[in-house]
């Protein structure tokens, strides 16, 4: 199968990583303060399940990518650990971009 197949998977992983990080930041930095400071629960009720879905989607894509191979143990740990830390998912974009570049140059099989 061509490297395009791999690149598409990595692109999806990158998109889901940013989506997961964005929804986590919105939940923790916007929805939760709105609930506790302004007593407005709607934001948490909406962002909670939305972040839950984004989190699951990202974890699923990470499991698929790691199981397929080509990731070191530390890279795999990093992929999963960043899902729990606000803003850390954005840093994943760099790791995933590096993987894509390695794939293009043939460094990753």
């Amino acid at each position, binding site marked *: *199968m061509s490297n395009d*197949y791999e690149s598409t*998977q990595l692109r999806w992983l990158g998109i889901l990583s940013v989506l997961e990080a964005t929804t986590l930041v919105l939940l923790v930095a916007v929805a939760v303060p709105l609930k506790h400071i302004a007593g407005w629960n709607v934001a948490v*009720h909406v962002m909670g*399940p939305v972040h*839950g*879905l984004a989190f*699951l*989607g990202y*974890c*699923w*894509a990470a*499991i*698929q*990518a*790691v*199981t*397929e*191979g080509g990731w070191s143990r530390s890279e795999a740990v990093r992929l999963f650990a960043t899902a729990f830390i606000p803003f850390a998912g954005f840093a994943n974009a760099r790791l995933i971009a590096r993987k894509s570049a390695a794939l293009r140059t043939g460094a990753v099989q």
Partner: protein
Amino acid sequence: MSLAALYPWLKALHVVSAFLFVAGTITTSIVLAAERANPGSVEPVAGFLAKSERWLTTPAMLLVWAFGLTLAVTAGWFSNTWLQVKLAFVVLLSAVHGIQSGQLRRLVRNKALKSWTTLPLILVSMTAVVVLVVVKP
């Protein structure tokens, strides 16, 4: 129309998605087991299965989660133990699906498969999910 009025429809769509998801997951598990037992035997169907995994089973899994979370929020079930245990099994099933999907991609790219047996785990998880949601102990 309120979410409560949509409950039977959401439930029906959740069940349909669950059927498709579990059917796809079991099929992939059996095909991967057949390939491990007899390397090269499922090569002709691997590409087709990868396509159906991408366009049928994975979207079905996302719909299972979307409809399921909506149902749980609508009915206010998140504090119930049966739902929390059920969620653990669904997370496990989704993880098994992710692992199998990665293995299927290895198969399509002619790479060696890991010797993971997933079928018993899928069957136990599926049974637990159905019992928990029907009996609600």
